[in-house]
């Protein structure tokens, strides 16, 4: 039994934000109340700390199976719990692609053996993510895969996407859309505009993103299916989603920390750790993302954790892989950029990083209710730290925030009733 004492418990699912104790018994939360006494329990003093439901990151590339040189399910979930994330959605751009029952059970086996956090599998919309024919969505659903995406690519064929939405609707599956019109983004490397002109690189227009957002929302509307727009980066996308929500369309959306913390100016030194897709945008886009977070247009913050080896990043900018890691920094970036700058208050941030993504994914997480899974994190919100390459537990270090000073450190992570991470003391990780 674990007893977390004297922390400020922020649990918007139960409308709570006060100093409380939490008693964990086995895998579940046994009791949440003031001044719990239990002599048998292991006590964690959370005085002056914030206690939150474990975070849910609905956009993570764990790379295994296929690219274990970049990340494995083990290292990726270790990185997650260090970042306060107890549940992740693993995106399907792996080899093999989780597009059938066989491939999914293969991944499940690895998760069972090595996963340090809850890992949910996102199935592929199309077989092999090739954009040619649909996966058997019913079969995926039977495997308990309730979310599909071809993330990393958009399904170019509108006809195929329409069919996917119909099947998704029929089976109660959520479609996550990576919105990018390849014909418009045309081998770009940075945001189209003064930045691409200055750097002499091909540009990725906002249009390439928001046009596809528009298309996929229209298809969702037509089919009454649920659609989730991944990694929203630009102003127009925010506006389109806002309007769609007003219109009553079942659309949700997420953004990643780099889109509210960095802009295209950060890429002017050709730092390949600032290269991601969609690219860092302009100041107006950053402001729109913050507005969207503020007014609920953007429901969730997800890292789009995309590990790449040095070999793939220490090359010419246009040849470098897209993507950055984010699991170990996302909460601190969110605190530094959103809490300190009064974009969101604590309950709102917990909604974006835990409650809402759990709801969108239809998983029983994001709450500190008595009887719920004991996924709990304790955060020292005042502690400052500098992001350093050597400190990552992720296999890759392609972080956009290297060298930055951030606020907020995860002190303890409890996942399924076990302390899986503790920031201080020896034996950082309690491996299975």
């Amino acid at each position: 039994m674990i007893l977390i004492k004297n922390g400020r418990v922020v649990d918007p699912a139960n409308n709570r934000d006060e100093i409380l104790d939490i008693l964990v018994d086995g895998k579940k939360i046994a009791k949440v109340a003031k001044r719990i006494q239990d002599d048998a329990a292991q006590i964690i003093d959370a005085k002056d700390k914030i206690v939150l439901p474990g975070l849910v990151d609905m956009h993570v590339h764990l790379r295994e199976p296929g690219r274990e040189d970049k990340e494995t399910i083990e290292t990726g979930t270790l990185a997650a719990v260090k970042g306060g994330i107890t549940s992740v959605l693993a995106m399907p751009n792996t080899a093999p692609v989780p597009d059938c029952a066989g491939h999914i059970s293969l991944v499940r086996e690895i998760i069972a053996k090595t996963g340090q956090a809850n890992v949910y599998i996102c199935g592929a919309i199309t077989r092999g993510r090739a954009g040619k024919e649909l996966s058997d969505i019913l079969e995926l659903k039977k495997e308990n895969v309730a979310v599909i995406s071809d993330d990393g690519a958009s399904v170019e064929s509108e006809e195929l996407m329409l069919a996917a939405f119909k099947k998704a609707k029929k089976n109660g599956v959520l479609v996550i859309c990576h919105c990018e019109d390849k014909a418009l983004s045309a081998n770009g490397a940075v945001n189209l505009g003064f930045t691409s002109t200055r750097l002499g690189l091909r540009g990725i227009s906002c249009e390439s993103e928001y046009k596809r957002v528009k298309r996929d929302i229209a298809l969702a509307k037509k089919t009454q299916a649920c659609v989730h727009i991944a990694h929203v980066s630009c102003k127009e996308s925010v506006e389109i989603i806002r309007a769609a929500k007003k219109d009553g369309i079942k659309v949700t959306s997420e953004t990643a920390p780099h889109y509210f913390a960095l802009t295209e100016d950060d890429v002017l030194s050709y730092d390949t750790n600032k290269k991601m897709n969609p690219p860092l945008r302009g100041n107006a886009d950053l402001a729109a993302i913050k507005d969207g977070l503020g007014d609920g247009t953007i429901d969730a913050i997800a890292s789009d954790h995309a590990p790449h080896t040095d070999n793939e990043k220490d090359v010419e900018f246009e040849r470098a892989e897209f993507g950055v890691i984010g699991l170990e920094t996302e909460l601190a970036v969110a605190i530094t950029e959103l809490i300190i700058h009064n974009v969101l208050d604590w309950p709102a941030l917990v909604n974006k990083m835990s409650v809402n993504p759990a709801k969108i994914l239809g998983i029983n997480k994001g709450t500190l209710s008595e009887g719920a899974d004991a996924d709990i994190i304790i955060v020292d919100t005042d502690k400052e730290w500098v992001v350093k390459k050597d400190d990552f537990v992720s296999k890759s270090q392609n972080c956009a925030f290297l060298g930055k000073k951030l606020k907020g450190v995860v002190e303890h992570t409890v996942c399924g009733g076990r302390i899986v991470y503790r920031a201080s003391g020896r034996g950082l990780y309690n491996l299975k």
Partner: protein
Amino acid sequence: MPWVRKDLLGLEDLSKEEIELILSTAESFKEVSTREIKKVPALRGKTVVNLFYEPSTRTRVSFEVAAKRLSADVINIVPHESSVKKGETLIDTGRNIQALKADIVVLRHFASGSADILSRHLDISVVNAGDGWHEHPTQALLDIFTLKEKLGRVSGINVSIVGDIAHSRVARSNIWGLIKLGAEVTICAPKLLIPCEIEKMGVKVTQSIDEALIGADAVNVLRMQFERDSDSAFPQQLEYFKNFGITEGRLKKAKKGIIVMHPGPINRGIEIESAVADGINSVILEQVTNGIAVRMAVLFLVAQAQEKIAFSG
């Protein structure tokens, strides 16, 4: 104004004073090439490696001549495209060159930003000899040097740059340099070859060649590479010449004595009429001569900065 940079990556980073220092140093170096013995021992014992991922005879030869007139040893490395795709990365190649105890790498690369990236991984000097569409600082410096020599000043002069601005590192470097030194710059190109938001660099933009030539003290004519880019809507050669070609007829309407520059190699009859390229307004061959002085100055300055860093470190 001391020179403290170990590298020359582009003109965007440089201050006005740094650009002026290179130009004044180049003025002194120009004399060396007029001597019977065209050689000074300033970089004796230094090794300059020309690492050219893109074929470029004239820039490479110019750097080679410049380095040799400074008594440096010069090695040319031209990686094959196949080995670039499969083999050693740029950074590994750079590290190997550094391990050979070379002192300066002159890099020409097809990818924008390559010189920046290489310089971050090496202690030895990196001189950018053209990276993708990004910058070609020594070309712009020699263009500006030539303008200064011909007009006596750069501040306040009107320079028009005509051609494929979108894919031109020469244009970008010229714009940064000229604007910093106080010149007025107009760029002129077909709509699709004008890069996004270029006016933020401080230039005027026009699609009319006549407008670009009126009042200009100099016109810098870029080489049109019709073979280069199949994906963007390139104009037809003949159509381009009709609308943007620099002809005697067009020059008649321009300022008397307008200076005509071209970074070479020239496509006669495509972006420029032969009569203009060879005519009295043309300074194209003087640009080549000045290129040596400018590159000598750059090699000398980065080498002495390097020694200074070594001394203080």
